[in-house]
């Protein structure tokens, strides 16, 4: 019997896994953004001495994972599972990273929702008694994403105002069955919601209904209200998506003003850095969570946070065939107390 399930979509972790350590590496542009002081490593060159952007992204993810494990005072042999994913076809970044890190590996694809997807599954593995130490990680790279989803870097086109800027960066979290927190206490798994948006330059609007759906179900299942949280943060809805969530959630009777924001809005200064609607990509939620949120929780400025990374599960092939963009959002509650 699923004794840990509450409501329709949520799992209450009986033995909440503790975050032992995190690590983040970001590219130069992210390192010029408002959250620069929270990142562990800022690259001067986003090719990082590699021959290609893909190899560079893999190195970024690999070094992030290794450093997170070292930060926890552990060695790779202590890790029971590595759960990671990325945006590239066949999740090659994660596969080639796992080739270098010899740890039992589950590759995940949740597009930009991968950070909270990996934290959800990692927490359940630990709470279920299947593992003691799990690493959850993800990455994205502006230049690998551009060439897969959009245009060559040197092509002289104009981006629309609702378009977002893929974050170059990776974040990794080491979860453990024992530790002093912060803890993952609740996991609410998202359903695919497809509002029928076909514009790939308007991902925020395509994913916002999925985020709202997960959020509303999280509140219903747990009995929490927005005021129970110090911060509710979505992954990469950008300015367009964030405003939609604020407005439509108010209509549903949830006032999120002052406690809700979006990683994509926070990571860049959209006017000075010309990032239009904000940041996106797996690395967006990964670096903001493992950098900013985790460090603020350690300081004690944030006590309970709902991280809800959002993903758009499309590809250029299927959108060219006229299909709309399915969105998803997974929520995890991170709490300095055991709940």
């Amino acid at each position: 019997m699923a004794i840990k399930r509450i409501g329709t979509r949520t799992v209450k972790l009986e033995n909440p896994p503790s975050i032992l350590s995190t690590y983040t590496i970001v590219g130069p542009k992210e390192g010029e953004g408002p959250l620069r002081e929270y990142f562990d490593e800022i690259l001067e060159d986003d090719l990082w001495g590699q021959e290609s952007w893909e190899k560079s992204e893999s190195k970024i993810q690999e070094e992030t994972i290794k450093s997170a494990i070292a930060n926890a005072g552990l060695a790779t042999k202590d890790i029971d599972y590595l759960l990671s994913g990325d945006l590239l076809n066949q999740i090659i970044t994660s596969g080639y990273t796992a080739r270098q890190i010899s740890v039992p590996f589950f590759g995940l694809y949740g597009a930009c929702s991968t950070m909270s997807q990996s934290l959800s599954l990692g927490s359940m593995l630990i709470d279920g008694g299947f593992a003691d130490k799990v690493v959850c990680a993800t990455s994205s790279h502006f230049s690998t994403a551009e060439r897969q989803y959009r245009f060559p870097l040197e092509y002289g086109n104009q981006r629309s105002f609702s378009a977002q800027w893929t974050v170059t960066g990776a974040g990794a979290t080491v979860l453990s069955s024992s530790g002093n927190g912060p803890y993952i206490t609740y996991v609410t798994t998202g359903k695919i919601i497809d509002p029928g948006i076909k514009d790939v330059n308007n991902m925020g609007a395509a994913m916002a209904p999925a985020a709202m759906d997960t959020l509303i179900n999280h509140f219903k299942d747990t009995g929490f209200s927005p005021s129970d949280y110090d911060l509710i943060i979505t992954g990469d809805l950008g300015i367009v998506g964030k405003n939609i969530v604020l407005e439509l959630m108010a209509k549903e009777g949830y006032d999120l003003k002052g406690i809700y924001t979006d990683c994509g809005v926070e990571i860049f200064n959209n006017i000075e850095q010309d990032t239009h609607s904000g940041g996106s990509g797996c690395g967006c939620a990964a670096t903001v969570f493992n950098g900013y949120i985790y460090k603020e929780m350690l300081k004690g400025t944030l006590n309970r946070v709902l991280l809800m990374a959002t993903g758009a599960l499309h590809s250029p092939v299927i959108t060219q065939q006229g299909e709309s963009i399915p969105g998803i959002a997974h929520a995890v509650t991170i709490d300095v107390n055991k709940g």
Partner: protein
Amino acid sequence: MDNLNKKDYQKYAERKIPKPTYFKNIILAFIVGGLICVVGQIIRNTLFKYGLDEKAVAAGTSIILVFLGAFLTGIGVYDKIGKIGGAGAAVPITGFANSIVSPAMEFKREGFIFGVAAKMFSIAGPVLVYGVGSSIIVGILKLLLTKGR
């Protein structure tokens, strides 16, 4: 969100997108496109000075502009011109050069056959196919309509 009315939501989301700055874009396209044409005119006049005939000047001007477009793409400048100029930078022949050189550069690491050569026309390909295709149709129409005259 199960009861979300997709049509209403799409209309609502449409309104949430910041409006493109059409007027500013048009002015910038005019200026950038105009400047590229001025450069073309300077090249043309210079070639005439060197005593080339009309046909050679037309070919020479195109060759030099294509080279400039490719060169500026190679040193990472043309994408910035394109960002400012929009259609003003894309429509002239320099933009055509940019659309061929940029994917060729981007996919160099996948090799010269499956990378550079195969991807080179990924952006310019449609322009070539429909450009050449429509010129053939127009040519046939001209032939039919002017037949016997």
